C-alpha cells in the first residue's frame, strides 16, 4: 500500500497510509468537538485535509486571492535568537531584524518586543523600549505593534511580591492562593496599562498581549482589564493572543462580564476579548506530540473554525512551534507549517495568521 511521508507532532518523520491519515483526521476533529462542545468538521472538509496531507509536494499554499494578513509575536527572534531559542543566530539587532522582515520577507505588520518578552521586566527599561519603538517607527512603513506577555507568574514569589499559588494550592491554602492571584492580577494590569500608554505616546500603531492566560484564569482577567482601559484611552490596535486552547482554573472563580474564565475554549474566549475592546484575537490550539500532524491540524482547525464563526473581530490563529497543528520542535518543517496555515485559512476561515 502506498505510504505518504508526513510528520508526527514532535516533528519526527513518519510514513503513513492514506487510510491511517484519513482516520487521524477524523479522530482529531472528533477530539476537538468532544472537548469544546463544538461541531466536528464535515466530510468535505475532512476530504480537503486528506488531499492536503497526501499531496506529494513539499510546500502548499492558498489560491491567489485567499491570502491573509500576518501579525506576529516575537518572530524577529527567529533571526537573531540562538538555536535553543528557535533562532538562527544572525548577528543583527532586533531593530534591523524588524526591517528585514518588512523589506525582505514582506510582512504585513511587525512588533517591537524585548527578548525578555514580559510586561513586568519592560517597566523598568521603558525608556529603552520607547527609544527602540521610535527608531523602528522612523524607518519602517508597516503597522508596528509593541508586544510582550502578561506572564502573571513573574508577580509571585520568588520573582515578585505576592504569594505563589503553585506553593499555596498544594498546601491547601485556597483562599490565600486566590487572594495572591487577585493581587498579582491587579499589579499586572497596572503594568500593562503603563507600558501600553507609554507606547501609544510615542506613536506605536498597536499593542500585542501575547501568550495570555499562561498562568491561568487570573492572568486572563488581568489582560482583559488592561485591554479595556487601553481600548478606552488610546488609539492602539489591540491584539490578544492566547497561551493555550483552554483557560486553566488556577483561581477557578474569577469572572469577566459575568462569565467564569476558567475552562473557556477559543470560541468562548473571543467573545470576552471582543467585549473588552480588542481588535484582533489570536486563538491557540496546542499540539499533541504523540499524534500525527494530520490529527493535530484537523483538531486545531475545528477549534479555530468555531472561533471564527463566533467572532466579530478578525481572528489571527497562532500557527507556530507547538501550536495550530504545527509540530513541537525547534525548527518546524515547512511542509507541515504550510499545511497547517492553508488549513487555517481555508477551513478555519481565519482573517490572519
Amino acid at each position, binding site marked *: 500500500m502506498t505510504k505518504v511521508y508526513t510528520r508526527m507532532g514532535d516533528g519526527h518523520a513518519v510514513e503513513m497510509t492514506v487510510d491511517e491519515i484519513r482516520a487521524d483526521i477524523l479522530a482529531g476533529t472528533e477530539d476537538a468537538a468532544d*472537548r469544546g462542545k463544538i461541531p466536528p468538521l464535515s466530510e468535505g472538509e475532512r476530504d480537503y485535509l486528506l488531499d492536503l496531507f497526501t499531496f506529494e509536494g513539499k510546500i502548499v499554499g492558498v489560491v491567489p486571492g485567499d491570502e491573509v494578513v500576518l501579525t506576529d509575536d516575537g518572530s524577529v527572534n527567529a533571526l537573531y535568537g540562538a538555536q535553543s531559542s528557535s533562532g538562527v543566530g544572525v548577528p543583527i539587532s532586533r531593530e534591523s531584524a524588524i526591517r528585514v522582515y518588512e523589506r525582505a520577507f514582506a510582512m504585513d505588520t511587525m512588533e517591537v518586543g524585548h527578548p525578555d518578552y514580559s510586561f513586568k521586566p519592560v517597566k523598568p527599561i521603558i525608556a529603552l523600549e520607547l527609544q527602540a519603538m521610535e527608531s523602528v517607527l522612523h524607518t519602517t512603513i508597516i503597522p508596528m505593534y509593541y508586544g510582550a506577555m502578561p506572564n502573571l507568574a513573574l508577580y509571585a514569589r520568588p520573582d515578585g511580591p505576592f504569594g505563589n499559588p*503553585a506553593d499555596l*494550592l*498544594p*498546601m*491547601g491554602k*485556597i483562599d490565600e*492562593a*486566590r487572594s495572591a492571584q487577585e493581587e498579582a492580577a491587579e499589579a499586572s494590569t497596572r503594568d500593562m496599562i503603563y507600558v501600553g500608554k507609554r507606547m501609544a505616546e510615542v506613536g506605536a500603531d498597536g499593542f500585542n498581549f501575547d501568550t495570555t492566560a499562561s498562568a491561568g484564569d487570573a492572568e486572563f482577567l488581568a489582560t482583559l482589564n488592561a485591554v479595556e482601559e487601553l481600548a478606552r484611552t488610546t488609539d492602539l490596535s489591540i491584539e490578544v493572543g492566547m497561551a493555550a486552547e*483552554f483557560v*486553566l*482554573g*488556577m*483561581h*477557578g*472563580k474569577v469572572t469577566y462580564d459575568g462569565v467564569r474564565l*476558567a*475552562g473557556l475554549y477559543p470560541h468562548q474566549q473571543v467573545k470576552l476579548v471582543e467585549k473588552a475592546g480588542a481588535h484582533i484575537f489570536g486563538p491557540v490550539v496546542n499540539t499533541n506530540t*504523540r499524534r500525527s500532524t494530520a490529527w493535530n491540524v484537523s483538531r486545531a482547525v475545528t477549534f479555530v473554525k468555531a472561533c471564527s464563526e463566533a467572532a466579530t473581530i478578525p481572528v489571527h490563529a497562532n500557527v507556530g512551534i507547538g501550536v495550530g497543528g504545527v509540530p513541537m520542535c525547534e525548527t518546524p518543517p515547512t511542509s507541515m507549517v504550510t499545511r497547517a496555515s492553508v488549513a487555517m485559512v481555508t477551513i478555519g476561515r481565519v482573517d490572519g495568521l
Partner: protein
Amino acid sequence: MDTEALLAEIRAAVLDGEPSLVKSLTEKALEAGLPALTIVSEGLTEGIRSVGVEFQKGSYFLPDLVRGAQSMEIGLEVLQPLLTGAGEEMPTHARVVLGTVHGDLHSIGKNIVAAMLKASGFAVDDLGVNVPVEVFVEKVRETEAGFLGLSALLTTTVHQQEAVIKALEAAGLRSKVKVLLGGAPIDQDWADRVGADGFAPDAARAVEVARELAGIR
C-alpha cells in the same frame, strides 16, 4: 431531617468544598444516630467521588479539587476517634508510598494526589521530591505498602520510574506492590512499556485507579 437527606447534604458540602459545613453536618449526622462508617461511605466518599467527576469534565479545577479533599479530611477527622473507639477500623484501603523520582523537583501534582488519596481513605507516606531509587525500595519494604506512586514531570526523569520498577524486581518486592505512574509526559503506553500496574493523568483519576486496583467499589 431524615438521614438520607443529611447524607445528601454532606455529599453536596464536599462537592462545594465547604470544610466547616462538612464538619457541622458530620456532627449532626452522628447526633441523628447514623453509623460513622455509613457517613464515610455514603456521604464523604461519594462527595469526593463527585468532585473527581467534575474535575474530569473540566468544570472543576485545582482549587476545587483541593478544597473538596480538605472538606472530606475534616469530616474524617470528626469520625476517626469514634470509629477507633467503637472498635471499627477506619476504612483505610491501602498504604501508599508516594514520591517524585530522582532528578525531578516537581511537587504540585504529587502533593495533590497525596491529598486526594488521603481524603479517599488511603494511608499515604509522601517521600517528597528528588527521591533516589533505593529510598523508594526501602520504604516499600519497611511499610509493606500495597501501592507505590511515582511522579515524574520531565522527559529526562521518566526513566527513573522504570529504574524503580527494576529495582523492586531485583529486591523481590515487585509482586507485593502495585506501581502507579503519573506526570505530564506519562501515558498508558509508557506505563505498559515499563511494566507499571496503572497510570493516571490527574489526581482524581489516580484515586479511581488505586480504588480499582485495590478492588474497592
